[in-house]
């Protein structure tokens, strides 16, 4: 079995299973903690509370105007990074195909030129973000190994993806192998580190949205 076969076969399977199991574990471990019934009279109906959850999920994508002057740099970098990554993942033909084969879902892809450009921007934003993390006193204080590991495990797939698209160094087979292996490393790590925020963000915002709507506060 070549490394590529290993990467595409058992390794992909294993990492997908680890990812699924890990995510389920973590979410269950959080959501099944004892839930206290809420007895205080809500200001809003159940429907409005749900609406609050949904609305906060959306509204938190864009910070309130008043916060912008102080956080614009970080927000923009992170926006470029997240949008770029989303574009590359959801728009890249091979990625769509992978999802298609795993789930049966399919959607049209974006032209490769655009994908390459987006991954270039993503890469640049990531580099800026890590530099900023090392330089900004608050970020330095908050950062843990998780932040750096997670950064690296996202960075590598983007980097190998770009190399792969241009076949810049090395041949397609070995670059593809590296790309797949790096994504698998990411998948394995996803449930255990901060990358889990890709799921937690929705649960967290929903929870706050419902709570705030119950109190009649802004969502």
């Amino acid at each position, binding site marked *: 079995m070549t490394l590529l076969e290993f990467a595409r076969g058992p390794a992909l399977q294993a990492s997908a299973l680890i990812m699924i199991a890990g995510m389920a574990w973590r979410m269950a471990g959080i959501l099944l903690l004892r839930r206290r019934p809420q007895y205080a009279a809500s200001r809003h109906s159940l429907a409005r509370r749900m609406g609050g959850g949904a609305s906060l999920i959306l509204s938190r994508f864009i910070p*309130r105007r008043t916060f912008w002057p102080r956080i614009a740099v970080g927000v923009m970098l992170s926006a470029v990074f997240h949008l770029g990554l989303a574009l590359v993942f959801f728009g890249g033909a091979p990625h769509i195909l992978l999802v298609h084969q795993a789930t049966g879902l399919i959607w049209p892809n974006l032209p490769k030129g655009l994908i390459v450009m987006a991954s270039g921007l993503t890469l640049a934003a990531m580099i800026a973000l890590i530099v900023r993390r090392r330089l900004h006193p608050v970020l330095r204080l*908050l950062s843990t190994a998780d932040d750096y590991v997670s950064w690296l495990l996202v960075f590598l797939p983007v980097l190998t993806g770009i190399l792969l698209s241009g076949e810049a160094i090395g041949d397609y087979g070995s670059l593809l192998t590296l790309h797949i292996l790096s994504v698998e490393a990411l998948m394995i790590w996803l449930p255990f580190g901060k990358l889990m925020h890709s799921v937690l963000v929705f649960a967290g915002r929903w929870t*706050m949205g419902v709570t705030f709507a119950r109190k009649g*506060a802004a969502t």
Partner: protein
Amino acid sequence: MRRFIADIGPAAALAMESCVHCGRCAEACQFYVQTNDPRYTPIHKIAPLKQAYERELGPFAFVYRLFGLAPQVTAKELESWQALIYDSCNMCGRCSLICPMAIDIADLVERARHGLFEAGLVPADYLGALAEKEQATGSPYGLTQAQFRDMLHDIGLKHGVVMHVDEAKADIIPTVSSIDLKMFPASMAAIARILNHMGVSWTFRTDGFDADNAALTAGDRAGQRKITLGIIRAALACGARTVVMPECGHAFTEMRWEAANSFGQALPFRVVQITELLAEGLSDGRIRVNPGVGERATYHDACQLSRRGGASAAPRLILRALGVDLREMGDAGDANWCCGGGGGVALVKRAQPLRDLAFQIKRRQVEATGAGTVYTSCSGCRQTLEHGGKTANWTSTVASLLERVADTLAHNQKD
């Protein structure tokens, strides 16, 4: 460290799990914004809580323990954290508004205080305030029932208003805050005057009156519930349909949103903040005022009433009814800046320099409005603003919205 992680359900766990270390919360917090000291980053303030959570409660707690990734939080560590948790957080929840992960950091700070309180690490000032009350009077309110009764009658006499005290049956039970008792007794006269004006059946209850609940911000869960349940029992005893929270932010948070949970069932009466009652009365005509003209004023939102309590509209309705020319501050309403004294920070003496720094923001904001008066509906804010104003040689006056309404009542009936 069990207490630390007590009462953590899915919502708090989500909050604990989600932080992406983006640092944005720092930019929303007055203590960081005014000092640029990274230690004042909101989520950093609860680091020991998170460590305890990861070790004891998280989905992968066993891994953390196995590999020693989250060591036991030591008493020493906690001690070093005391100032961050008590002095530099107003539990104002402004950080909860900016956090992209929607982490309610203010709520986590409250939980962190539970842990510190259990560990005996509540600041001495607090203990002083609490113990003083208890020991001097045998009641958590700092006054015996008899003392309170006498006090109320004195206030009634002094302000020429009929007081209802300890009546057996009443529809409405107003409560007061200990700050009012000490500093602003006129506010008790004001509420009496207004309730009389409305012609409702009401009474102060000396067995449940001080809603201020310093125990909440101290992290004293038992004390907090003791006070709250006292008020609930008093309200039940006289068959009240409405319990009115005084001009106090945290009192409202506790009674409106937490009390029923401590009680274990829905409350058989409704809980409103005084501004909500006033707005209601003004809208349905039970309260009539003589509106003035041209008074230029601004309104300072108490975080617990606006951002965290959903009661931002009421005070504005009142100000309109009073004919006040309202000049809103930037970020008014949900994104307001705390006065700097919330969350019990006003109680901690050593926090004063920090508090004053935070106050600078408020000062700039008020000055930018050009308003002569700052109204507020929280005597905690009122006290902090007055104090800050004094140190900053402020020309604006700070006033209570409640008292302002009481002073403007249309006098066409007996009070």
